[in-house]
């Protein structure tokens, strides 16, 4: 699995560039899960949230998935206030939770065989 930290404010142009990185690491590592950690992102607006959503949809098209971690209380409130739906995308408050989640998911996969 791979954890990609996003740091700093994400303006639209930068957000597009930054979103490509988690997808490229999926290819490079062959790991089916990427954790996008937004602890370092001070604010999330509709555009940023849309970029995150698009990245997750793109990852799923590629055959992988993303977990968003590092969601601070203010950001959680903004997301709800803006009416942004994360649907079935897993979101975790801490990176540690996200890692545990991925380990559980990959462990389940191995048991299926």
């Amino acid at each position, binding site marked *: 699995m791979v954890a990609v930290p996003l740091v700093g404010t994400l303006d639209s142009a930068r957000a597009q560039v930054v*979103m*490509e990185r988690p*997808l*490229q690491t*999926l*290819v490079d590592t*062959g790991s*089916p899960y990427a954790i996008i950690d937004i602890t370092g992102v001070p604010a999330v607006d509709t555009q940023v949230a849309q970029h995150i959503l*698009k*990245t997750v*949809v*793109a*990852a*799923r*098209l*590629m*055959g*992988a998935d993303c977990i968003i971690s590092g969601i601070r209380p203010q950001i959680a409130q903004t997301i709800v206030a803006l009416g942004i739906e994360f649907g079935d995308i897993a979101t975790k408050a801490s990176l540690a939770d996200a890692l545990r989640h991925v380990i559980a998911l990959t462990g389940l996969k191995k048991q*299926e*065989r």
Partner: protein
Amino acid sequence: MDRVPILKIGDVLLVSIQMDMEDQVALQLQEDLADRIVATGCHGVVIDISGLDIVDSFVGRTLATIAAISRVLDAETVVVGMRPAVAITLVELGLSLPGIRTALNVELGMEMLARTPVSVPIAEDHDDGNHD
């Protein structure tokens, strides 16, 4: 006309698209695959698109059709190796590739097929393709 080669590996047919395909080549692949699935009795198809630097709506439709035809012939299809730039573009284009399973690479695609019991309907098959 160039034809895309199809390799048989055990119970799986592997197709690796390395070139920028003309539309006719894509359609020929569709036919060739259907023939080979029937001829070999294979239950899995892996289509490796890591060599494609773009996937437009025609290729997308062709992949969806291949998956649908294969399913009728009792074979599951997995598309692997989609490049990040292609995935991002498909999201922007609004192309969702319904009914197509994907994996990051050939190895993971093969694992996915090995985990799938044959002749069990796949739950995600809810779409009739008429979204325009």
